[in-house]
């Protein structure tokens, strides 16, 4: 579905004109579609992107916002010139390994989180050079054009329509119907999560007990 098709379905569900809506402006509905996209992306972790960043001499910490503006959370760091995936550690584990680990230089082997927008690599390179590939879960970009296809699959796009209707009903103060529609929207989330290949229950796979799945844990 294109953005305009999603918008049309939302407006028709709200009994308004799709071509010249009365109670909602086009930009209002577009904002709601984008908000729904973001909610789905946050819950499903379905949108993945990659970005490259050059390694700098002595640099341990990197701001994720300086790597990509749409980055939600990195899930894989890879040194392209060494063909090496960096393993994940915590700062506490680094403290246990070496008392002054921050002073150690060399080719990076590990990465560790600091903040939602900062991660570090260990050891830090002594000389600039080499490219770090950052694979990350992303927030979806706002569609720029009415004819733009949304990145989500069809069932999620249907969920977007439901979210738009929910928001429209709230604006009409029809709270009861709005909350019911919101419940329908929530029902789509687990299905989308399965399709996102994050939970592979159908394939009889489960995560090892030592690792946690990537889920926001948000039950909306």
């Amino acid at each position, binding site marked *: 579905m294109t953005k305009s098709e999603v918008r049309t379905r939302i407006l028709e569900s709200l009994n308004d004109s799709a071509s010249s809506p009365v109670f909602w402006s086009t930009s*209002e509905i577009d904002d709601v579609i984008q*908000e729904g996209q*973001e909610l789905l992306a*946050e819950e499903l972790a379905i949108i993945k992107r990659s970005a490259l960043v050059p390694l*700098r*001499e*002595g*640099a*341990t*910490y990197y701001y994720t*916002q*300086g790597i990509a503006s749409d980055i*939600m*959370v*990195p*899930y894989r760091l890879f040194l392209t010139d060494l063909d090496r995936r960096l*393993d*994940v*550690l*915590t*700062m*506490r584990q680094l403290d246990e390994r070496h*008392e*002054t*680990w*921050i*002073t150690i*230089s060399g080719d990076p082997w590990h990465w*560790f*989180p*600091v*903040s*939602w*927008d*900062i991660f570090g690599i260990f050891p830090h390179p*002594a000389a*600039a050079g080499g490219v770090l590939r950052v694979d990350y879960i992303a*927030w979806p970009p706002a569609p720029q054009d009415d004819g733009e296809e949304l990145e989500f699959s069809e069932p999620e796009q249907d969920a977007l329509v439901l979210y738009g209707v929910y928001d429209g009903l*709230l*604006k009409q103060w029809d*709270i009861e119907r709005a*909350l019911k529609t919101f419940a329908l929207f929530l029902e789509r989330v687990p299905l989308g999560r399965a399709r996102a290949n*994050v939970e*592979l229950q159908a394939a*009889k*796979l*489960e*995560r*090892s007990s*030592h*690792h*946690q*799945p*990537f*889920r*926001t*844990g*948000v*039950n*909306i």
Partner: protein
Amino acid sequence: MVSDELTKIQKKLHDNAAIWSRVELLRWWGDGYRQLLALSKAVVRFWNLDVPGGFTFADTHQWEANYGSGTHNRFSLAIQSGNLSGTYLWETEFIEGIIPTNSNDAVTQPWERVHSGEWDGQFRFALPRDHEQLRRVAWDERRLHPVTVKELDSLEPGWNRRKGEPVVFTAGLGRIDSFEIFTIRTDHIQGYELDEAEKGIPRRFTGDRTYGQSLAQPPPENAYAYTSTGDAEAITGPPYDFAPTDAYSNPQDVLHAAGATPWQFTWDDATDTQDAPDQGFTATHPWMINNRGASEDMYGTHPFEHEYGAATKVYADGKPVLDGIGWRFTKAAAVLDDGFATHIWEKEMQDGATAFTDSVDIGTYSWEAEFGAANVVNFPVGVVRGASSPDRQYMPIYLGATKERLLGAPRDWRSSKQNISILQTIVPDNDLTESETPDLIPTQMFKYLRYYTWSRAFGRQGEGHNLILAAHYERRFKQGVMLFNKLSALTHRDVVYARESVGITSRRPPRPKLPAAFPRVDI
């Protein structure tokens, strides 16, 4: 921008500030921002503290801490139910009429320990105003482990005075947003000395480390020096540019040209390779030099000819004659007609003084400071944009400013070397304005702040009160808090899939339960 968000909120409320004022919505939006940061603990920042520590204020009485924006250290202790404050321990005995015993020194700031003897107070460090929670404390890159005061009390008497390398930290006995270390270092260790900090942001660096830096243009050194206001007017271009008094074509004509600043509008070539190889050649068009034959632009002789399509040799309208920054190294006399002076005593003499001041070594360029010139200046232009070293990282830390956060200039420089380095979650304590864009959270999280604002708006008593919607939006805000918290916590976990084990769960039938009266079987 916050104002855009408030407009969206008002649209959903169907209210144009009749029920919920814009100020009220802004306050709730700001509260939501702080709540999101505080509850999620997702924004973590580094902060380095010089040793010994320092506070903005040193207070005598407790009430003083409630005033003044900054950190407070009460150096005195309450005596006689708080009616009095004592600085030295012996004061307590004296006030009660007991013969005082000797006590240790007293200081008002921890850094004064550099100059004092033993002190009975706590060796304390202040945390910044936006501090929320400590994540990690390190001394000279080594992690310090947290302990309680009770453990330290049982460890060693007088632990707060024991000197050595810091090994642990404790919340201590001070106000909130402060901590103490054990053992203490009382020698003064400052990562960077901000020389002449009152004049603005740091512009140059000296040190024993290898580092690179990039500066904005123009560079902060003067490109030329001049002596009088006349020079300044002449070299900075219109309206004081060198207006030529006459124009001439051949260097020989300069003797006959009118005025003080005649101008040659032609090009000279040392040899004419075509017509007269042994003689010089003057051309009216640049293409004529070594390349006669092709037609080029029409060249004029005076600047005003620009208006008629002529290009000129030197002039470009509005362009200063000299590039870069100039600096006047002389001093004007009080009466301009008296001229100018190089040394201060010369100016005093011109101004009619009878007593004179010794002068300093005079330089004309900034770099002459290295050779003893004491009068040269650094211009307040050009800032450091980055610094790098193979040994360590010079990391910019932003603490919640505007959208252009990383485009600004560093205001402070701190080091983790031989210093206390902390990792902390932060929550800004300043109120947002409508023209700001909070930058500690991604813009995609703004929707959760809208939910918070709606929950507070619908939960407010009075017109528009709707408990169902308030609860609904409160739940949705909490989902945002959980999400943001997960974003900061999940990055350290790789996803690993494993095949489900088959058949490891053994089932056994339940144990038989016999009634209590079951008869004993006698064999």
